[in-house]
């Protein structure tokens, strides 16, 4: 209890209780009409039921929660922890009027403990608090796919964050970012090794897990592609999904019309998407910020509407089906290959399994994503990449230094779009079926969210944000209608704690005093 001795608590008792009472009053005013009354159907007649017990318990929880958080802010840690534990105990052992209230009580108790532990810098307690919180969620949600290893990783991260947190930076994020900076080089290699081994790790078996990993990797690749446009060149593009669509349809239509294989179509899809990037780029050369965002948004919608209405070419809303699957150096993933050819499992003498193809797709998207990443990291150290970043910082200064703004912007649009096109071709071959449905504005928004929440221009940030925004919602699919709620809450939390993104740190691309880090 060293920190208690260092900073003796000065509690303003009356004000604290008054503030908590005010919060309780406001929540009561909201809860009475929303929760207190309920119309039910009994035998064809409608009755007005009241649920005062629920209201009372909810208001009581709000009061306690606010009180405890206030106390934590005044550096009192023991009482909130105790209250949190008591509420947890009640939540586990005493039945509540509804499951939802029970969830609120359990999570609330755990959050209070976690908050006390983080502010008080009892980082080991914070890990335990997180585990209890996860266990509480498990208890009430009865998740089928509850994954203890994930909880363990989460608790470990929080412990590390608490450990790295500096004296003046009490927030988890700062501590984590600090440790992250030091660990980045080996962290990146470790992640790549982890990603390479992933399909064969014992806790990761099963087709569903690999499917989710493929999905996350697709968004990582899209995020890295969009990062070139938004993060490096600073061109806010709300229509990135258009290039994804162009890539997907390029492959689907080329394969259908000319019987081209995936490996021929992949570069073509990139070229077509890059071409569309230039088409978008020309009219928006003079636009910046909000105006640029609106035009790109319109462009994205235009592509979708064209795909929807040009029925003779794209088959309209029915989409394109029967898109050929990729082959492994000519070996197909079929149980019974066509006459005269060998399939993958026959060539390698394996038992046929449909998972082979999924694992192959996983490695395919992993390699595509890593190429995107490698390209971006490399181009940052080249004149074009530096000009992109300079253009993001100040376009007028760029012009005064002899940098051609037209070529610089168009190259950013084209190259960003090209990677979107690659990802689109992959999407088409993975799904085997595409329709304009898959390329709505929501997709653009999610890709942009991955980039922005990760930290603009940060490569690792995109990975983290894609895992948090895409991977976690897939794992908690059993929460059903609460899933999107959790998604939104996650976004709000990230923006509150780390308004510049999870890992918003930019390292210079070149150093004069190498070795001496600033």
């Amino acid at each position, binding site marked *: 209890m060293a920190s208690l001795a260092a900073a003796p608590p000065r509690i303003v008792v009356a004000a604290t209780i008054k503030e908590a009472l005010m919060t309780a009053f406001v929540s009561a005013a909201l809860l009475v009409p929303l929760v207190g009354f309920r119309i039910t159907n009994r035998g064809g007649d409608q009755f007005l039921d009241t649920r005062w017990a629920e209201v009372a318990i909810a208001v009581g929880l709000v009061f306690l929660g606010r009180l405890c958080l206030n106390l934590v802010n005044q550096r009192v840690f023991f009482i909130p922890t105790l209250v949190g534990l008591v509420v947890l105990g009640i939540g586990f052992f005493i039945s509540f009027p509804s499951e939802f209230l029970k969830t609120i009580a359990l999570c609330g108790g755990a959050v209070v403990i976690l908050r006390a532990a983080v502010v008080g810098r009892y980082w080991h307690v914070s890990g335990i608090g997180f585990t209890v919180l996860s266990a509480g969620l498990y208890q009430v949600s009865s998740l089928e796919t509850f994954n203890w290893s994930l909880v363990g990783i989460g608790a470990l991260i929080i412990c590390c964050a608490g450990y790295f947190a500096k004296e003046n930076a009490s927030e988890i994020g700062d501590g984590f970012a600090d440790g992250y900076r030091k660990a980045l080089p080996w962290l990146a290699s470790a992640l790549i090794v982890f990603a390479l081994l992933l399909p064969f790790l014992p806790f990761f078996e099963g087709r569903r897990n690999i499917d989710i990993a493929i999905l996350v990797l697709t968004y990582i690749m899209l995020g890295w592609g969009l990062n070139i446009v938004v993060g490096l060149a600073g061109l806010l593009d709300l229509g990135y999904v258009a290039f994804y669509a162009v890539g997907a349809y390029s492959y689907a239509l080329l394969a259908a019309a000319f019987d081209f294989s995936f490996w021929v179509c992949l570069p073509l899809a990139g070229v077509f998407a890059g071409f569309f990037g230039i088409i978008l780029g020309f009219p928006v050369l003079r636009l910046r910020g909000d105006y640029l965002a609106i035009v790109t948004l319109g462009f994205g919608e235009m592509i979708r509407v064209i795909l929807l209405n040009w029925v003779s070419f794209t088959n309209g809303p029915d989409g394109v089906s029967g898109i050929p699957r990729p082959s492994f150096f000519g070996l197909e993933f079929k149980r019974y290959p066509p006459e005269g050819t060998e399939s993958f499992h026959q060539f390698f003498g394996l038992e046929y399994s449909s998972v082979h193809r999924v694992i192959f797709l996983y490695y395919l998207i992993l390699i595509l994503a890593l190429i995107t990443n490698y390209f971006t990291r490399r181009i940052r150290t080249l004149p*074009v990449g*530096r000009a992109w*970043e300079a253009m993001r*910082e100040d376009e007028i200064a*760029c012009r005064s*230094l*002899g940098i051609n703004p037209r070529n610089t912007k168009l190259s950013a649009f084209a190259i960003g779009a090209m990677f979107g096109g690659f990802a689109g071709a992959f999407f088409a071959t993975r799904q085997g079926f595409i329709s304009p449905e898959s390329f709505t504005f929501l997709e653009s928004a999610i890709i942009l969210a991955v980039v922005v929440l990760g930290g603009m221009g940060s490569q690792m940030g995109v990975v983290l944000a894609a895992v948090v925004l895409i991977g976690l919602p897939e794992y908690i699919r059993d929460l059903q209608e609460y899933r999107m709620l959790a998604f939104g809450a996650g976004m709000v939390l990230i923006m509150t704690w780390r308004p510049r993104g999870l890992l918003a740190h930019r390292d210079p691309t070149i150093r004069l005093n190498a070795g001496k880090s*600033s």
Partner: protein
Amino acid sequence: MSGDAPLLNVEHLTMRFGGLVAIDDLSFTAATRQITAIIGPNGAGKTTVFNCLTGFYKPTVGRLTMMRNGRPWLLEQLEDYRISRDAGVARTFQNIRVFPEMSVLENLIVAQHDKLMKASGYSAIALFGIGGYRAAEREAVELARYWLERVDLLAEADDDAGSLSYGAQRRLEIARAMCTDPALLCLDEPAAGLNPRETGELNKLLAEIRDEHGIGLLLIEHDMSVVMEMSDHVIVLDYGRKISDGTPEQVRNDPAVIRAYLGQEEDAVYGEGA
């Protein structure tokens, strides 16, 4: 040197914004190895002259001829980025425009964009690690190191440019403009916001640039201590018209100038500067 063709020749420059005449039939020349200062009261059109020279505005009337590499460049017909790249006119800004989230060194490397683009095969060849880009980049770093030393920013080379102090950002802007290898350096109020010690250092730096690098400097300045001490040639603007043109000594004693600054009084206006 004064017998040569002038580095920059401005003839009948006129700039109208709607009904407002910001610059009215202005003609002047700037020579190489000289500091030419443009002074005048607020709103006299000084920055507009710069914006016309550097292509941010297209002049309504006038011809701006820049001599570089033995041939004339008509600035009023060039796109703004080509004025820096081909005609060799570099500038700094009244409100500083460094790239704040890039490091000091990166700011100077970006300024050598054109050279590095060519060396790296427009980045496409260097992407695969072939060609002479590494060597070109090392040269660029050496040039940047030279200028960092000159403006005394060597220790801050790897810091974010935005974290530098105001005076240091001004010096960085000058270094960045010099890294473009200009023939004419246009400085828009380089001494604004500097303390007397920093102003003294600035004077020294500008004199060294003029004498050692053999380029022309064009200066907008309010600080008379800089103008009177440094300039070889002063042009005075008032309401967009040139009211005086000559050496600092001539301009200081020109009644038209004194009238423009102080009304009819004929007190020693510039006494403090000498």
